[in-house]
């Protein structure tokens, strides 16, 4: 830690997290731990599914693991990591000294470890819900004494998410340096404007829905059951949260990739303005497609039609983004360092996940796809070789700035090729299983599904093992071993972060920087 204000003394520094880089670090460390926990849970799932018959865990435990795998990966892994990147990078990217409410970061962050610890305790105090992350009643009402702990934990993550997003949104709106107009911000900042808005809109919905579940259980209100209640009401409320949540988990990835591809193509992002408008339209449309998760619930024909058409339409702005990334690469002068490799793979594999989503938008066909491994393949393509690959690209991209040393490019390339091969052997055959009729969330399966399941389980182990290369490579950088990184280690990189030394000072832009046109995402 060099120039500028020095860090506060140990305890206080990490309690309040007043420095945005400390806050970002805390979120990223938490996310790393949660990715480890969540993927370990998935390895239990994959061991059980290696062969037909029950070998590893009882189906009741299996179901709890399915629930926790989903919640931990979504709230603890993907969301916490994106908030981490936002805390770490956004103030610097817009030339701000820090977040708008500096000391809010600490209390808001520390809710999360408490919440995830509580979630992970539930199997030992009577059992987590056996519902999957969607937590549908009436099944969730069969949860034992752990239910209130579980509900409290989910509510805590929503409160944390709401306030961290509020802080990010206000920072982006109010703390930009002079000359950093909204329509000149890096795309990552723009995607976070929309993401923060979505989080603030839907986290209260999830919290309210969870509290209604608790009220049904302990106060006898009967929102979701009994003579006046409706199990479908819960699903409508849940997916009012849940569909925007899907975009919450992928929009920041769009921002990261839109930052990285131009750097390595040495060419400005194609269609910056249309990217901003596409992000905004995706944000708005994400509120009117929720019921496509409910095509098989027997809702009226008119509702099926509406949600089928609205879901098809949301693929248009998403397609625009993919086309823009390809056009950015077109006639650039590309090099393929590790960040670019992961960003390129993101575009291709996110597109695969997008297309299986578009296929699922056709309601009469979704009656077949729904609740099968086809859908499991779909959202894992969007989230793992999608969002997770974008984060890996971003870590390789910014780690030299954070640590001042270059990661090992050789190990990075090995990590990339290992990951991109194993991830496709892991998730692609899930399409086949789903189309052949294997439902999701089953602890045991009919023997005709054995071969692909074995292939998937082996690939899951290999993908997981390959991440050790990544951990080693990043650990090496954190230990400051490696070649010295220059201030701008990527020739084509634009943005205020590259005007700082490597490693960057602990305290940056205490006075707003003079911004040169070259550093703006859209200078004219």
């Amino acid at each position: 830690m060099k120039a500028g204000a020095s860090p506060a003394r140990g305890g206080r520094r990490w309690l309040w997290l007043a420095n945005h880089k400390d806050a970002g670090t805390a979120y990223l460390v938490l996310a790393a731990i949660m990715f480890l926990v969540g993927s370990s849970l998935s390895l239990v799932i994959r061991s059980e599914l290696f062969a037909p018959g029950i070998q590893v865990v009882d189906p009741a435990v299996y179901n709890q693991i399915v629930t926790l795998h989903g919640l931990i990966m979504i709230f603890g892994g993907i969301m916490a990591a994106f908030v981490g990147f936002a805390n770490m990078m956004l103030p610097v990217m817009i030339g701000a000294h820090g977040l708008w409410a500096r000391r809010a970061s600490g209390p808001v962050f520390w809710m999360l470890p408490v919440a995830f610890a509580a979630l992970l305790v539930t199997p030992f105090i009577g059992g987590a819900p056996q519902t999957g992350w969607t937590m549908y009643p009436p099944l969730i009402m069969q949860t034992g004494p752990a239910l209130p702990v579980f509900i409290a934990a989910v509510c805590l993550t929503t409160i944390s998410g709401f306030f961290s997003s509020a802080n990010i949104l206000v920072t982006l709106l109010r703390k930009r340096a002079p000359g950093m107009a909204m329509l000149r911000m890096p795309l990552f900042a723009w995607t976070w404007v929309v993401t923060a808005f979505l989080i603030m809109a839907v986290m209260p919905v999830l919290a309210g829905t969870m509290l209604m579940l608790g009220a049904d259980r302990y106060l006898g209100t009967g929102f979701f059951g009994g003579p006046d209640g409706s199990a479908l009401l819960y699903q409508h409320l849940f997916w009012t949260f849940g569909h925007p949540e899907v975009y919450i988990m992928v929009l920041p990835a769009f921002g990261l990739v839109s930052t990285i591809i131009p750097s390595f193509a040495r060419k400005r992002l194609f269609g910056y303005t249309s990217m901003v408008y596409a992000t905004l339209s995706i944000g708005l449309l994400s509120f009117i497609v929720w019921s496509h998760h409910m095509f098989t619930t027997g809702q009226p024909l008119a509702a099926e039609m509406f949600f089928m058409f609205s879901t098809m339409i949301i693929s248009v702005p998403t397609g625009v983004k993919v086309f823009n990334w390809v056009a950015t690469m077109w006639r650039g002068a590309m090099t393929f360092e590790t960040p670019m490799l992961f960003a390129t793979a993101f575009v291709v594999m996110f597109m695969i996940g997008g297309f299986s989503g578009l296929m699922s938008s056709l309601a009469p066909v979704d009656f077949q796809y729904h609740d099968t491994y086809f859908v499991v393949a779909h959202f894992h393509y969007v989230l793992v070789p999608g969002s997770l690959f974008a984060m890996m690209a971003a870590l390789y991209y910014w780690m030299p700035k954070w640590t001042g040393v270059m990661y090992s490019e050789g190990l990075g390339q090995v990590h990339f090729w290992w990951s991109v091969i194993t991830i496709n052997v892991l998730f692609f055959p899930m399409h086949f299983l789903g189309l052949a009729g294997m439902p999701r969330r089953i602890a045991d399966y009919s023997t005709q599904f054995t071969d692909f399941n074995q292939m998937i389980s082996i690939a899951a182990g290999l993908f997981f093992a390959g991440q050790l290369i990544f951990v080693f490579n990043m650990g090496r950088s954190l230990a400051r071993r490696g070649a010295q990184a220059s201030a701008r280690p990527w020739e084509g990189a634009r943005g205020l972060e590259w005007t700082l030394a490597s490693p960057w000072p602990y305290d940056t832009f205490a006075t707003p920087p003079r911004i040169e046109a070259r550093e703006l995402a859209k200078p004219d």
Partner: protein
Amino acid sequence: MRLRGSGWSRAGLAVGLAISPAAYADWQMNLSPGATAMTHQVWNLHTAMLAICATIAIGVIAVMGWSILRHRKSRGVEPAEFHESIGVEIAWTVLPFIVLAAIAIPAASTLVSLYDTDAADVHIEITGHQWLWEYRYPDAGVHFYSRLAADSRRAELGVDGTRPQDVAHYLRDVDNPLVVPVHAKIGLSITSADVIHSWWVPALGGKKDAIPGRINKKWFTADEIGTYRGQCAELCGRGHAFMPIVVKVVSKADYRAWLKAQGGQAPAAADLPDAPAAPADFDALAASDALSRDEAMTLGKHVYNGLCSACHQRDGSGLAAAGYPALTGSDVATGPIAAHINQVIYGKNAMPAFGRQLTDAEIAAVVTYERNALGNAVGDEATPKQVEDLR
């Protein structure tokens, strides 16, 4: 696409997590077209959408791949300056809308058909339970429960060393299957007694959720006799993987016999539909030596509508203003049959001779048709033999 083989089970053995590499079932990789007209429609939609997506994906990957190979710094290229193009961006916003509209229309039409649950021939009430299915035929008074078959249960628990691969249809077999007649429209009313389940037999159509406090409707018409297997598709607790569905599609007679054996009342045979009539094979009829009355009328109508109706009109009323006489009540069509046949073979005035164009059976059939349809009811029939004799 179906591939056979069990290479990966051998790989599984190789990593030492021993299970038998016995040949499991096919490597099914795609949606099955199923056993109903609706599942065929759905399969067509699936295939069309898959083709659209694959085409666009290949296009994008091809352009990107070309760019990755060519537009590299190591090839000494200078990066271009362009970063927007209104025309291109409008094009790739508007074109997808058109493609989507083209697939949305047939999808909407299929959806409407799937929601048309009226006028079922057989009505069945289905109730999901943790973890079994309850079936009730209200009209026949038949009611029973359907649970996981005992041998699957033994294999799941490993009783007496039974393994999943030792039993037939592991986790896809039940003690009491649902039995329905072929060709009949089966109307299902689906609900649940506890938590949400979902009733799904892929070959007979998509799933429909069983939700407590709510009755969901679904229908299917199976075109082929056979046994179709599926399972609960909505996570419903510990036994979710262990509540299969088996539907036996049987003939009308077998269905009625089964209902009686269950102590129920079978509907009259006439209340269950027969197979839809196969389209007539006109070439075979035209070549035959003898025609039944039905065959003659079918073939005759086909010939009449194809050739004669241009002048005499479809209903036989003719076109007096143009000089084409009506056949309804005409002297030829209601007079002696030999003269009628003669006129078709050799023609008269404006009417061409059809003797060379038509076979004996076709001439006989059209004569029979003209004498017993189009408002005529002479009652007699021309035979191919008579035609042959008059040539």
